[in-house]
């Protein structure tokens, strides 16, 4: 393997322009994903999936962003962020003190997990790990079994309705192979998406968190940068300004294949049990 490459997405500088979403679709010929006015702030993309490999989340919160002054003036209760917008009287938002307001934006993508459940469970070998340490689907091998889809702890990979196969971010395998930056990172005007060797990115990210914390942005933290976590660290990790679930990310994801040996043991025991029970059933008086 050559050097492991990945993304550091620094959401503290994301301006929600969605250039990453569009650039990804343009480069990879990802189909349109439907016109749906959602009422989820400015997010009409909703989630990652077969036809969306970059997704920018928009979160309105009654929370201060360090010393930022939002200038707005509101009282009254708000529907919590977790409320479905079509049933809410207004854009759901994290509750807090009226007059506080911050607007978080974050571009999400496949994490290219070190321990990638999708890849592990793929029965055909369509999902594979590249020389850059990324996780890619070979669409000519995929048979649409759909197993990778519930296996992913982030809900990243999805099935394309018309062709039944599974699709997700390739970390622009074709571009990085030619020494180019992935399309989304290239398009990102503020360098919210940073592409590079993972080790370097991790260092840069740690420094950035320290800077932000020093500047009073106490809630800046890294997500998936730690190689001890349930996926043994991601190839695409993030700087977040709130808990992961606020952004629709799992707080403590694990690749369930981690528990596979135990599961196989239980299955073997259970199978043996059935065989034993079967034999016992024939034992003794008829």
């Amino acid at each position, binding site marked *: 393997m050559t050097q492991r490459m990945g993304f550091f997405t620094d959401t503290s*500088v994301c*301006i*929600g*322009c*969605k*250039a990453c*979403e*569009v650039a990804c*679709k*343009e480069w990879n010929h990802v189909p*349109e*994903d*439907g*016109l*749906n*006015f959602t*009422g989820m*702030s*400015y997010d*009409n*993309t909703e989630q990652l999936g077969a036809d969306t490999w970059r997704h920018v989340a928009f979160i*309105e919160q*009654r929370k201060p962003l360090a*010393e*930022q*002054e*939002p*200038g*707005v*003036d*509101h009282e*009254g209760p*708000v529907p919590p962020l977790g409320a479905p*917008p*079509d049933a*809410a*009287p*207004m*854009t759901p*938002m994290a509750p807090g003190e009226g007059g506080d*307001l*911050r*607007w*978080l*934006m974050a571009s999400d993508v496949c994490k290219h997990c070190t321990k990638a459940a999708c890849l592990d469970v793929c029965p055909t070998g369509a999902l594979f790990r590249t020389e850059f340490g990324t996780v890619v689907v070979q669409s000519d091998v995929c048979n649409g079994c759909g197993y990778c889809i519930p296996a992913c702890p982030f809900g990243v990979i999805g099935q394309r309705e018309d062709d039944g196969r599974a699709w997700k971010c390739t970390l622009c395998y074709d571009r990085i192979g030619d020494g180019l930056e992935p399309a989304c990172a290239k398009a990102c*005007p*503020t*360098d919210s998406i940073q592409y590079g060797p993972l080790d370097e990115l991790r260092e840069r990210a740690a420094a950035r968190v320290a800077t932000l914390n020093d500047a009073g942005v106490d809630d800046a933290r890294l997500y998936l940068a730690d190689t001890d976590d349930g996926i043994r660290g991601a190839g695409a990790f993030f700087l977040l300004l709130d808990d992961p679930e606020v952004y629709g990310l799992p707080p403590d994801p694990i690749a369930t294949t981690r528990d596979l040996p135990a599961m196989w043991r239980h299955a073997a025991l259970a199978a043996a049990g059935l065989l034993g029970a079967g034999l016992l059933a024939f034992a003794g008086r008829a």
Partner: protein
Amino acid sequence: MAECHPVGFQWVMEAKARGAVVIHVDPRFTRTSALADLHVPIRAGTDIAFLGGLIHYILENGEYFREYLLAYTNAASIVREEFRDTEDLDGLFSGFIEEARKYDPRSWQYAGSEMPAPSREVDEELLLMTETARVEAHGSGGPEVAGEIQTDETLQHPRCVFQILKRHFARYTAEVVEQICGVPRESFDRVCRLVTENSGPERTTAIAYAVGWTQHTTGVQNIRAAAILQLLLGNIGRPGGGILALRGHANIQGSTDIPALFDLLPAYIPMPHLGQNEGLAAYLEDEAASKGYWGKMSTYMVSLLKAWWGEHATADNDYCFDYLPRLTGNHSTYHTVLKQMEGVCKGYLLLGENPATGSSNSRYQRMGLAALDWLVVRDFSLIESATWWKDGPEIETGEMRTEDIRTEVFFLPAAAHTEKSGSFTNTDRLLQWRDQAVEPAGDARSDLWFVYHLGRLIRERLADSDDPMDLPIKQLTWDYPTEGTQGEPSAEAVLAEINGFGPGGRHLGSYEELRDDGSTTCGCWIYCGVYADGVNQARRRKPGWEQDHVALEWGWAWPANRRILYNRASADPGGRPWSDRKAYLRWDAERGRWTGPDTPDFPPTRAPDHRPPPDAKGPDALSGTDAFIMQADGKAWLYAPAGIVDGPLPAHYEPQESPSDNLLYKYGRNPARELIEHPVNRYQPSDGKPGSEVFPYVTTTYRLTEHHTAGGMSRWVPYLSELQPEFFCEISPELAAERGLTHLGWATIVSARAVIEARVLVTERMTPLTVEGKRLHQIGLPYHWGNNGYSRGDSANELAHLSLDPNIHIQEVKAMACDIRPGRRPRGPAALELVREYRRRAGITERTGMEI
């Protein structure tokens, strides 16, 4: 800026990372606010009050940069005795001619020249002049300032600009700002502190604006207010300072430089007038300044005429000056529509514009189109301006029937920017060349192709004509080489012509080389040098990291590849940088020239202590401290003694349609604003007049990052449509509760012109304001939608009216008044009925809103 200039915004983020404080003043909390340190929600249309408050704070607390002010601005200049301020006349400046709703600006002049007695004749000339935006035609320099300027360096003289400024802004206190703008004291005080603390010799503050400031009846004055602020603080001509006009369409700067404007020739040379400006000499006498670089106008003009008519242009025939068309009145776009309806303008070419959706009061636009004999639309898709005759809103309401419309409509497919070579000029005046990536498909052709071949065919038809009227076309230089399979004219050849040639066909290197003896040609004097040495300088792509921070080898900036205009002001009068931290240009006494990382915006060898002889003209008349070299007095203007048609100083006026009273003046709205009286352009009562309560909400229109302008380039694109799939309005939870509007439901929005519907987005990003003691709600409307395309919706511009800034004829779509109610709008004739009912309720007549 994050919304509409996301790529440019990376530099704001970079500055922020280095400790810059970002302040965002906007009615809405936008993506820009999200990244700013301070968001100041403001009532739309009250920026002059806000900026006036800042100016007041600076003057009151002595926070101005005195040395800079004295050296480089007209603070010390003394104004005529006849001048009266809005403070004296309750909202009017002296010289207002009521019947014409226009100013005679002569009383605004500096003291020192006789004020000619007004005569009937002069007045008419004057009216034509203001109508045709003569002022803008004077480019950045403004018109000649007459006479010997008197000054008072102590700034004590009661009629010196500084004292006038103090009096004018005396009432713009923080309390008044709070009352008018709805900006609480604490926020405003914080802005005052931040801006002043960050200005001075060691620091600079930059202001960026775009159409949130311009699209008002006080558009130009908004920018003037910013200019005053920046000059008081010494923030012009210095690194990190300035007023950055963030531009629009990728090449909108280019299209003002080499204009698509009716009253300008390339590079801000004024278009001659009918009746006035007889003959080149008289024209130059009238228009050229005696001091500064506008003093060289003859060289620019003659070179331009030579570029256009080549060998036919000779000294004997005034270089074909008479071939130029003459202005006969106001031919700005909205007035042209009026002419369409009057049957005067019979044919129309729409090249890259979608007025049926994108222009203010779209119905008025379509009415104009429907009165034409023929219409040519060149675009990528069948935009609303091409199909209104079969599926426009008037067809739905029954106001128009397709079979009655006699306009012949031609649709020609246009090539996109990727399909042709050419340059873009951006916000930084930077020309950047782009090469063709693919050939246009099918019948699509570039606009250059269209114009060139159209001209060629017309010239072929006229080849045998003896009519002298045809000479300007027959003798035109029209010889561009064509290339490729489609006969595409060479865009580089056009650029070379714009750059200009000297004797022997040498590519010129700078406008300093231009002559008025017919020996040089130049299509746009400020672009002279872009093709120096026969090299396309706009095509240079040396990355920033391979050169210094000014990066002179990336693209090419006009004029003369200067990156900061008026950069002489970055050094003190003696030629030393104001501070090490902000060093840029310095006078190198040993070498006898100005040095620094940028091209000096000053005669390069003029010493700081140079004083010109009294009879010097043009650039020679500039002293070593006249940093503002395009100005007729070499000074930056805190007070504009001429050149602006609605007053020498910005004053707070309410928008044409506003639910609030003017707290400061009896004349509540810009007295000189342009109004258009027409049945489809009825105005609402305003300024607290009876009926204004029928339209109690302020509405503003704007852009979303995901879409582009009237939508021709985004609503047809699935990848963009899915990001913002529907027309919506943004409102606060408080307004939603007040009007029973539900999140994700529908809203019906009504003005005196139209009724439209939009999905509802309720969000705390929209905040109510307290204005003059009352709770005020604002409604946000992105204006991208129309009824064609992949993502469709009503157009916000249906609501809008035409009341224009009198200087540049821009529409006031940033601050309007309307009503909003839950549910979808009525269809067909019922929609018209609803609007009529509103008009009845508000008592609207053809005189409503026309008051001075």
